[in-house]
């Protein structure tokens, strides 16, 4: 099973829908990294490099879309959601324009570039903007499919993509709908809700938990907003405990979104796994996952704590934070 990055799915999606003359692609000097370069190569007349000027790129995208274009605009998550936040809010979202912001290099899996480039805040920032749809695909195939779908749904999208090549969960027959969570594995003791590359970690954790007699449901939330309340409430009722996993600050991200729903609808035992309100550091992605406790082992560990089962299986109790 070869690994591929979700940003590769973006490039390939653009190629598959690129014949549509309405589509215009913008980038800001990162076209090789974001993979818009493949669109540029095939459709040079509908690709525009805006230079290192993300704010300008986003408002330009708004103008293009007001004139009937479907605009894909790309940079790193840090500079798209970060630098251009206010342009996204006022030029794109407020007038509800058809701009798809495809932001790559999200999260700590950026690795060596370090804290200045690891955006763990983008979901939180984007979630507060009305009209915004937020998509966080878990693998190449999901990214490709959902990005293609987004082209035919009116309105602003923020699509969160990764740098790191990750394991495939799906295949070319992927056919799920935006806005609907996916039940990947059923279970009765706990629901693990994940997004992005952590969905694979959740599936791995489920296998480990099963060996210890814990049966976990795994749900993939690829659309963070509008979120699929139904599947979250239903599965929480069925299992009685929920763990969320994301490569994002637990403040503002998937964990927050799920807590907001469950607090109102079905208050329940919950644990949010993700960046614990910290900045990232330079290092190899797998080492960072370990340090920041975002991997299968951490999911297993915190699920067990949550379920108060076998606390001493892994470590002494006082080792737990």
């Amino acid at each position, binding site marked *: 099973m070869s690994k591929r990055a979700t940003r590769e799915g973006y490039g390939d999606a653009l190629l598959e829908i690129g014949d549509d003359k309405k589509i215009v692609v913008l*980038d800001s000097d990162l076209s*090789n990294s974001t993979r818009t370069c493949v669109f540029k190569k095939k459709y040079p007349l509908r690709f525009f490099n805006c230079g*290192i000027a993300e704010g300008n790129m986003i408002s330009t995208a708004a103008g293009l879309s007001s004139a009937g274009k479907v605009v894909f605009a790309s940079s790193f998550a840090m500079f798209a959601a970060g*630098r251009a936040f206010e342009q996204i809010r006022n030029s794109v979202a407020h007038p509800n324009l058809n701009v798809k912001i495809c932001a790559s290099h999200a999260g700590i899996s950026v690795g060596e570039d*370090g804290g200045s480039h690891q955006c763990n805040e983008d979901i939180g920032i984007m979630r507060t903007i009305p009209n915004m749809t937020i998509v966080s695909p878990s693998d190449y195939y999901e990214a490709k499919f959902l990005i293609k779908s987004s082209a035919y749904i009116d309105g602003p999208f923020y699509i969160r993509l990764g740098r790191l090549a990750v394991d495939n969960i799906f295949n070319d027959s992927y056919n799920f709908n935006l806005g609907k969570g996916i039940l990947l594995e059923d279970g009765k003791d706990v629901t693990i809700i994940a997004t992005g590359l952590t969905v694979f970690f959740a599936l791995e954790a489920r296998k480990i938990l099963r060996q210890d007699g814990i049966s976990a449901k795994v749900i993939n939330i690829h659309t963070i907003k509008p979120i699929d309340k139904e599947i979250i409430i239903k599965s929480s009722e069925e299992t009685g405990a929920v763990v969320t996993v994301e490569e994002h600050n637990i403040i503002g991200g998937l964990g927050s979104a799920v807590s907001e729903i469950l607090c109102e609808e079905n208050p329940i035992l919950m644990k949010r796994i993700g960046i614990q309100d910290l900045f990232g*550091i330079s290092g190899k992605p797998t080492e960072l996952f370990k340090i920041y406790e975002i991997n299968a082992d951490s999911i297993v560990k915190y699920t067990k704590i949550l379920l108060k089962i076998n606390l001493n299986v892994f470590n002494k109790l006082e080792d737990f934070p």
Partner: protein
Amino acid sequence: MNQEKLKFLKETAKDVRKKILLEIYSAQSGHPGGSLSCADVLTFLYMEVLNIDSQNPLDPFRDRFVLSKGHASSALYAILSIKNFLPQHILKDFRQCSSILQGHPDMKRTPGVDMSTGSLGQGVSAANGIALAGKIDKMDFRVYVLIGDGELQEGQVWEAAMFASHYKLDNITYIIDLNGLQIDGKTEEIMNISPIEQKFASFGFKTIEIDAHDFLEIETGLNQVKLIKKKPTVVIAKSIKGKGVSFMENNPNWHGTAPNSEQFEKAIRELEEKYV
């Protein structure tokens, strides 16, 4: 500049270049092109210009250097290690989990780093802020900020330029690393930024143009800036991206790619044998 000093500066710059390559090769990650292009300017600044002391890296009276093009961190760490702000043996830990040498400069982790940078454009405004504080406190330290030519595309750079001029920050010097390349290709083709000299002049800057790889010109240029009163200065330093390693020179593919072992050895050999 006498021959002896010139020779010393060239040797030091060569050492900086070798250290840059070592860091990036060890990390298998980093930005060789833009680090090599500013190696001579950084060498001159740290050896001849900046009033700094490795024993007192937070001295409030010190001159400041802001690497606004923070991706050239490997060049900054190289010269800081030569100036004894950092032990040389940690250069090989560049960009690793346990290291104080982050991918982009981090003022809270690395001694000698005056401002955290990495998001292009922001270092310029931050440097203005340091210069403004110097004015408020009537201190006579100077601030130097190194800006990429692609970085000039960020609107924030021009907001900062307007600010420096408006507040007559004659204690700040902008240095533009004019290597003509950014990530996606030539600045000229991606988003033309010229005429740079006229742009800064019209923003109220004293402008000085130099060859970024000629120590005599660097010296003349940087000596001049101290004489300019009531306005900020920009030194436009024409450089070659990847300078010193033939196969990296003027090639945008070496913006953010690490050399493999063969390329690394070849580059070091070239620097040792051919580079003067």
